């Protein structure tokens, strides 16, 4: 019963025009990126870890955004179309519904990463970084994807219109991405310092640098990643908590 819903979500959001479109965009981006790294002179001089990191960041960033957009439409969309009421009258629990939608987003993530593996392999193999790339992508990457999709699903649950849920999701994405745009000096003081020290996004960035460039040992990296884990647990916890609020009513 749960699987039937996962299957339906996958068909509706991933093996649909929208999903295939997203997939196409991601692979196009990867192709352009890889091509530039190889053929543009200035870029081809970059060391391999930097190249790999840039690609990973971009891949993660765009996938988080896509996952959030899909997540934001998932429940609000059913409310808008008037399909949620019938769904709630099946033996599915509200929590099942949230989890099935999350699972579908994870399937999308899995497919995208599989498509990007050849690119990552080519970019990483010389420096022998490919196993590390896999670990980062499927470990930290997956955790980030689940966290952000959960947030999008929360918006989708509490809001009634797909449009609003989507706008909020994109805003949340931009806010969490702020640390990436802060300069190193800015990060040293005030609010920027607080944000960059505690934000899961900057924690995962720091960890990335320490893994690929500084070759830091695993226990230390894990400590650095604590904000990421906390963020993950909180997001998932609230998504499951808010599941009770999944309501068919439109308007109000």
């Amino acid at each position: 019963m749960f699987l039937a819903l996962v299957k339906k979500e996958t068909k509706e959001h991933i093996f649909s025009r929208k999903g295939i479109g997203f997939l196409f965009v991601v692979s196009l981006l990867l192709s352009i990126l890889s091509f530039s790294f190889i053929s543009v002179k200035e870029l081809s001089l970059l060391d391999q870890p930097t190249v790999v990191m840039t690609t990973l960041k971009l891949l993660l960033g765009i996938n988080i955004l896509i996952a959030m957009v899909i997540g934001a439409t998932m429940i609000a969309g059913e409310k808008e179309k008037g399909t949620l009421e019938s769904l709630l009258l099946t033996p599915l629990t509200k929590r099942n519904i949230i989890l099935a939608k999350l699972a579908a987003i994870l399937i999308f993530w899995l497919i995208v990463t599989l498509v990007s593996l050849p690119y990552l392999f080519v970019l990483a193999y010389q420096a022998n970084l490919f196993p590390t790339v896999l670990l980062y992508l499927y470990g930290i990457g997956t955790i980030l994807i689940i966290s952000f999709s959960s947030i999008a699903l929360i918006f989708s649950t509490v809001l009634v219109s797909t449009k609003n849920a989507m706008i909020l999701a994109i805003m949340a994405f931009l806010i969490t991405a702020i640390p990436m745009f802060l300069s190193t000096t800015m990060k040293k003081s005030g609010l920027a310092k607080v944000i960059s020290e505690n934000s899961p996004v900057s924690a995962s960035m720091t960890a990335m640098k320490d893994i690929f460039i500084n070759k830091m040992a695993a226990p230390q990296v894990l400590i650095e990643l604590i904000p990421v884990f906390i963020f993950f647990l909180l997001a998932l916890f609230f998504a499951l908590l808010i599941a009770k609020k999944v309501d068919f009513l439109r308007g109000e």
Partner: protein
Amino acid sequence: MINTQQLKKVYDNGFEAVKNLSLHVHKGDIYGFLGPNGAGKTTTIRMLIGLIEPTSGELEVSNLNVKKNKEEIKKHIGVLPESHGYYEWMTGEEYLQFFSALHKLDKKQRKAKVAEVLDLVSLTSKANVKISQYSRGMRQRLGIARTLIHDPEIIFLDEPTLGLDPQGQKDIENILLNLNKVNGVTIFITSHLLKDIEKICNRVAIVKTGTLMEEDSVQSLLDKYKKEIHKEDLSLEDVFFHLTSDRKEEQ
């Protein structure tokens, strides 16, 4: 089948949509739940099926206390909500397959059951057509098929004939009569088509702004109001207007 006592719903904004409603639906009834727009019909159905909490009162469906058996009750009821949507990208058959899986029918059962309910609503020939290409009447019939997928004892239909042409309305009526007679399904239906309700329902309730005005068999109501409303060939419609109209009868 359904018993409610002093059922009441006050919405969050303080609006009292249903007031002390006591309804009695018997097994095998085709029960017409009638009332003007805003009378509280949809609100009542949503309480009966456990989708919204009553503010107070008792309610029992299929011998189960709805408040205490929210999950169990889903097995006994089928519901066609008031204004509902479909997954347009599915075919009729895929749609029913999907719901049969959600209702935990096992794989072997599913195919036969889907074929059976498609046949019941005469959609077998359209089974493999996308729902986006269905007409309104076909959609409503598909909706009814969906309510039947898990063999419920009672189905709730909230304005199933809304927006259908006369033929479409007749099709639905025939399906319902057949379901009731052959499969023994109890039917709780709301509709504004009083002539049709009079034809297919054995019992009706008439509500006005959340208050129950009458609950009885169609014939008893007609007999009862014959004395009050002086009109030849008294119909359910006349009784309805008599009970729900705000205008006092012009002398």
